[in-house]
């Protein structure tokens, strides 16, 4: 099986079939990540699509290393852009309810316990748990993706994981 860097090199030469294979391999991770970052907001798949389109445009800048970390960094930046736009819209709309992100889907009853528990975490913890626990990035890769200090990432992951376990246990008892 061809490695991610090989496929990325082919994609950088304009081979969209190679890129399609990369999308196939990483779509679950990226879609899951955008769902979790937005707390299952309706923009999740738009962010995931924008992530791959941006990745295609910037594939020439991929310099080896973990492709998953590279694509997750792009996904995180797309999420920040969407969140920034949403906040601007809320500022302009005086009648809008002030919410950190579109959580319209977060409270539906049919969602998995895991996602519901994750959505209850504070945003910084949710981001760190999403990157390190769900998307399997190392703490260092998550620090590079977010621009946050390594110690901050470790602290948020530790607290986030503890809170996640607590929420999951509470859900099971209930």
């Amino acid at each position, binding site marked *: 099986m061809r490695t991610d860097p090989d496929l990325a090199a082919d994609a950088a030469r304009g081979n969209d079939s190679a890129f399609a294979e990369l999308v196939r391999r990483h779509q679950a*991770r990226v*879609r*899951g990540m955008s*769902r979790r970052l937005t707390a299952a907001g309706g923009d999740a798949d738009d962010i995931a699509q924008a992530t791959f389109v941006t990745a*295609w445009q910037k594939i020439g800048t991929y310099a080896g290393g973990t492709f998953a970390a590279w694509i997750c960094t792009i996904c995180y930046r797309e999420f920040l852009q969407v969140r920034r736009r949403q906040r601007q819209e809320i500022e302009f709309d005086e009648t809008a309810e002030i919410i950190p992100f579109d959580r319209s889907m977060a409270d539906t009853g049919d969602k998995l316990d895991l996602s519901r528990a994750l959505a209850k975490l504070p945003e910084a913890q949710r981001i760190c748990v999403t990157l*390190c626990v769900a998307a*399997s990035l190392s703490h260092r890769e998550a620090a590079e993706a977010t621009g946050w200090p390594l110690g901050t990432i470790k602290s948020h992951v530790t607290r986030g994981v503890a809170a996640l376990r607590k929420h999951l246990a509470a859900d099971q008892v209930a």
Partner: protein
Amino acid sequence: MRDEDTYADLTALFTAEDREHEAKPFVDQVIGRIRAQARIRKLLLAVTGLGGALLAASQLPTLLADSVGLDAALTTSIIQAQADAGALANANPLWLGIGAVVMLSLVAVAAMERT
């Protein structure tokens, strides 16, 4: 023990959840968007190329008229086209601005997009 080992069980749960959401239509949508952008880029490149070629052709009579001597009918039609374009710009200078903005946009898009 590595930090990652302390939450390997949660990672497995997340991974299982992600697999449930894998979908072929998503891959098709992404690749469809990429191919649509490529088509638009090629069209823009063709238009800018054609525009550049026409611009270059319009300068040919001036460059070559003295030394080579072009076909009189061709030279006349090119000069006529130049005159028409000049008249249009004189009638409303806004056309020059619009033309410049369009050309700059096309050049920017052509330069930013991947081949």
